């Protein structure tokens, strides 16, 4: 058995809890705490990389919940992609927080939950069947809630409650779907062959992730419950869609993300929301099977919801005055680019979605870290208060500009590539109406994106500062804060100019559709 797969899941959780319960006095000073945390970050990330590389084997049945359903881990390319993304953003935002959190209280608690969340996310990425995925999905909500509530203000508490309310509503909808679909799951007698594994010898295994779906569709048709089944899948989509900020259950996102400390916002907006996306991909493409949904009302309604969300998110971001809230609304919009692509159920759009998962994670983390660096050094929160700062912090603002161009989708940055695949995928899908409304909505949203991101860059470089006297003391932020932002901006640019390796990797995953 490949118990090594468990390492990046379990170790961060253990370390996290240890940190949580250890007395403050154990660490001589703040630096002591940071050293311990830093080492555990690096070790956790290294373990994750070890599993991603495939050296730890690719599947593991931990134990059985009931006879047919094990808690089961499988490392496939999709999981690798998401896990790799988590590791990158986890490390960058983690090191960023070493400086940023010096202004906040309860640093120890923050790091411990940050580590626990990482462990849980690894579990989510490597989950091998729907039940395991659901388990970690719930843990993810619980583990990330303390990051939202961190500051302890009334606003933060209310936001955290809202976050919990929406997340659980969604999770229960999804759970209902799982209960329903469970009856139609194929029991693989020898799943080692079906799952393409090498030496898998368990006898009964349900709701595992198989490219193309693992439900017995013949049984569904025979039972005459096709419509009910579609409703169940739709509920799962809406339920998991909560995490992905899909209309109508998106309202928690712009409330919860901005109140968290900036590095946590970056992690929430860049990575944790992708948990919802991963769950949806697993459900639709690896469990139910895209063939079952293609051409049904579920696909159409899903696409329409995504279009509504992406336009709504962008227009609200355009109207928003507080930087972090603006970025949160932008996350709502961008996640729906991904959902729109997934709802099209063809290879081009699927590739576009996965590319946008990667690009958005990097860009949005970069933008939130940028916002954090600005808030940390100036104490201001509104967009127009940052006028003229570009002259004092050129590297930071250049990084921001590149990330913004990436999110708008201007060559040579990365965003244009994912948009290209998403739009051509939409047009290829041939769904009446949506096939061209989708690309138009994408471009209108891109225009709004330009409208809400670029003024900050332009005013930062070209406008006079609000307060000359105050202005003189601002400097480029400390290296621990600056480097992560620069790295993310550089990634945006590099992936835009040389996307070939990534596209090849993602293209291999998109084979599920062929």
């Amino acid at each position, binding site marked *: 058995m490949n118990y090594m797969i468990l390492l990046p899941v379990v170790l961060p959780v253990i370390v996290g809890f240890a940190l949580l319960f250890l007395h403050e006095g154990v660490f001589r000073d703040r630096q002591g705490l940071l050293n311990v945390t830093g080492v555990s970050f690096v070790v956790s990330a290294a373990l994750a990389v070890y599993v991603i590389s495939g050296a730890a084997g690719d599947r593991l049945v931990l134990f059985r919940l009931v006879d047919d359903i094990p808690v089961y881990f499988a490392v496939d390319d999709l999981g690798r992609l998401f896990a790799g993304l988590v590791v990158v953003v986890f490390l960058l935002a983690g090191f960023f927080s070493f400086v940023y959190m010096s202004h906040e209280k309860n640093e120890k608690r923050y790091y411990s939950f940050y580590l626990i969340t990482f462990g849980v996310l690894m579990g989510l990425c490597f989950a091998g069947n729907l039940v395991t995925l659901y388990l970690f999905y719930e843990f993810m909500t619980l583990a990330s809630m303390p990051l939202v509530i961190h500051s302890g203000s009334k606003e933060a508490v209310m936001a955290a409650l809202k976050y919990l309310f929406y997340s659980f509503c969604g999770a229960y909808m999804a759970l209902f779907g799982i209960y329903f679909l469970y009856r139609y799951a194929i029991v693989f007698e020898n799943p080692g062959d079906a799952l393409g594994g090498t030496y898998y010898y368990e006898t009964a295994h349900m709701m595992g992730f198989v490219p193309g779906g693992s439900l017995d569709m013949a049984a569904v048709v025979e039972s005459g419950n096709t419509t009910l089944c579609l409703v169940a899948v739709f509920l799962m989509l809406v339920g998991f869609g909560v995490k992905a900020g899909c209309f109508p259950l998106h309202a928690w996102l712009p409330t919860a993300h901005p109140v968290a400390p900036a590095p946590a916002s970056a992690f929430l907006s860049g990575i944790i929301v992708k948990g919802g996306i991963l769950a949806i991909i697993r459900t639709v493409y690896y469990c139910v099977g895209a063939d079952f949904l293609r051409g049904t009302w579920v696909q159409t309604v899903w696409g329409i919801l995504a279009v509504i969300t992406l336009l709504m998110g962008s227009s609200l971001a355009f109207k928003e005055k507080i930087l972090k809230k603006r970025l949160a609304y932008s996350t709502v919009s961008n996640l729906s680019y991904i959902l729109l692509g997934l709802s099209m159920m063809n290879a081009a759009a699927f590739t576009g979605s996965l590319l946008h998962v990667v690009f958005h994670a990097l860009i949005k983390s970069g933008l939130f870290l940028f916002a954090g660096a600005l808030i940390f050094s100036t104490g201001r929160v509104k967009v127009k208060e940052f006028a003229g700062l570009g002259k004092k912090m050129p590297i930071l603002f250049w990084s921001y500009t590149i990330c913004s161009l990436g999110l708008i989708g201007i*060559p040579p940055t990365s965003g244009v590539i994912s948009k290209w695949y998403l739009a*051509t995928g939409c*047009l290829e899908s041939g769904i009446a109406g949506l096939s061209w409304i989708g690309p138009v909505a994408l*471009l*209108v949203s891109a225009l709004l994106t330009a409208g809400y991101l670029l003024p900050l860059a332009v005013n930062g470089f070209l406008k006079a500062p609000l307060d000359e006297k105050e202005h003189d003391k601002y400097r480029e932020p400390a290296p621990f804060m600056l480097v992560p932002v620069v790295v993310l901006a550089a990634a945006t640019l590099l992936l835009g100019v040389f*996307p070939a390796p990534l596209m090849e990797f993602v293209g291999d995953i998109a084979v599920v559709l062929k």
Partner: protein
Amino acid sequence: MNGIVFAVLFPFAAAVLFWLLFRNQKGKNGIAAVTMLLVSAVETVAVTLPLLENVTGTPFGMVTLAGVGGLGLHFMYSGFRGVFGVLTALAWFVTFLFSKEYMADDEKVVRYDFFNLMTLGATMGIFYAADFFTLFFFFEIMSFTSFMWVAHRQTKESAYAAGTYLGIAIAGGMAILMGLFIVYSRIGTLYFGEMCWETVALISLGENPAWMYVAAVCMFAGFGAKAGAFPVHVWLPDSYTQAPVPATALLSAILSKTGVFGLMLVSLELLPLQGSWGVFLLAIGVITMVVGGIRGVMSANFKTTLAFSSMSQIGFVLTGVGMQVLLAEMAAGFYGDAGHFEEAVGVFGMAVNGTFIHMVNHSLVKLVLFMTAGVVFARVGSYELNKVRGFGRGKPFLLVTFLLAAAGVGGIPVLNGYISKTLLHESIVEYTSLLGDGAVLSGLMKAVEGLFLFSGGLTVAYMTKLFVVLFVEKNADSALQAKYEGQKQYASLSTKAAIALCALPIPFIGLLPGLTAERVAAYGFVRSEVEQWHYVPVDVHYFSPTSLAGAVISIAVGVAVYVLVVRLWMLRRKADGYREVFPAWMNMEKYLYRAVFYTAVPFVLGIISRILDSIVDTLVVLLRRTVYCDRALPYELPEGNRVTHRIGCSMERIRMIYCMIARKEYEPKHYEHKLAIKSTDIFENFRIIERSLSFGLFMFCVGLGLTMIYLLVVN
């Protein structure tokens, strides 16, 4: 062949290196300027080499940078690209030469040069692109880097202009992208040369070409905006006026041509032989040249006049592109009818040559004119006609170069504009005669011809206006006039060299069209869907009476317009000098585009989104208020209990309302407090009573009494 890739990438590399070397060097503009000159000289050599290698101008080769930007970048060489590559590199060279003096005191020269080089690279990328994706890739880069030209001066006006420029550039870019999406998903290729065959094949299979028109109109929004075509020209006047002069010269001379280039490719590759598209472009071209001309005549600002002149000339070019499409369709229709076919191809050649030569002419002329404007601005500090008045008196170099350029673009015989305008005019006339009398279009074509000559007249009128202001009239302020006339050292040698370099070809093209213009046009013959129609030498007698008649009509119109509009209307009150006579409320940019796209649309979208955003939250709140019976957070009242608090507050409010109605002075009576004290008193008394023995006996008594009553009732 790798030379063109070098030409595209070299400026980018140079820009980064330049920035790394010079970013901290303040006040060493001289060294920076020399570096720029060297870079642009190397660039010029790099783009000239393929010209020598390939003396016929036939397109060849394709270089691929695989995987870059997703689809890979592809470059190719053709005569048209070669000519414009050289023209671009030369334009950058002369503007750098010009900036040496003009930008000498500019604090931000390093930033300016950095973005300038990036724009050069991107422009080269556009001209050498072999597919639409590459074109789009560099077009977007060019839009963003050239934004810094407009924003360069960092004044309030330039920020406003830059805001419009960026908005239109991004919107246009997205529109182009939409067009590309449609094309790519329909025909699966974006390569020039492949696309047209695919579309021809699709149409011959009976496919409805409506989607191609949608794609083409989308792309028109983007490319047309950069060219300055009506109705997406709105950024042009402000941006041209606000950018520093060398940048304006480049915007007008080169960047507008990238837009035209894009539209030409749309016409050739996406909608080959589609007459309706030709009519669309023709209409756009005519409106653009007339609107630009009218606004040019009515402007009281030197640079804005030139900006509108630019727009008007692009209108001429677009008219030419429209004629090309119409003539190509006509020639294809005559296929098999050898006599007519030959004739139509000949006229088609006229339109192609006229368009091409006019593009080159306009680049040269506008470089001269804008640089002259820069010389004026450097000494006068303003572009207003009343301030500029009389500056040119006693400055023969300025007089000669300005006159060459102004008369050149005005279509005065023996100068360059005459050649291209005659070709375009001839193509319209010949097309009308080929159509025959009965055709639907022939009436329309007569109108087009009339408007063409009228616009030519407008060109003459506004150029006369500028010439008179600069060289004939004296300034109202005689002290200033004396100062102007005393300025003999008004420009350095490098500045003069830059202007002279661009003015030199103007009479050559005009006097010896057969040796210059036609040779260049033959080389640059646009590779098109009619590839098999080899270049036909154009048979036009430039100085025949019929050709001259057009010019004479234009000049007559020009003189009439000048007298009527400028002398009689703009100068109505002599003391005030020149007035802006164009009504301010007709500002499309401010009252239509900004109002709709920056205010109305976001407002409506915002309201709808706000409603959608709060649906679920509202629902949750409603449920909590009704079904779930959510209680408010409990909090301690400072005194009394909830009943006294409610009653006290209500009484206080009633009293307040009573006072308001009775118009009495309101004094708070603190009912809440009084009631609270009362209730405390009462409760205290109760407590005393409760705990006393007498209360116990009293309750015992009550109990007995109740028992008695019960017994009575039961019995």
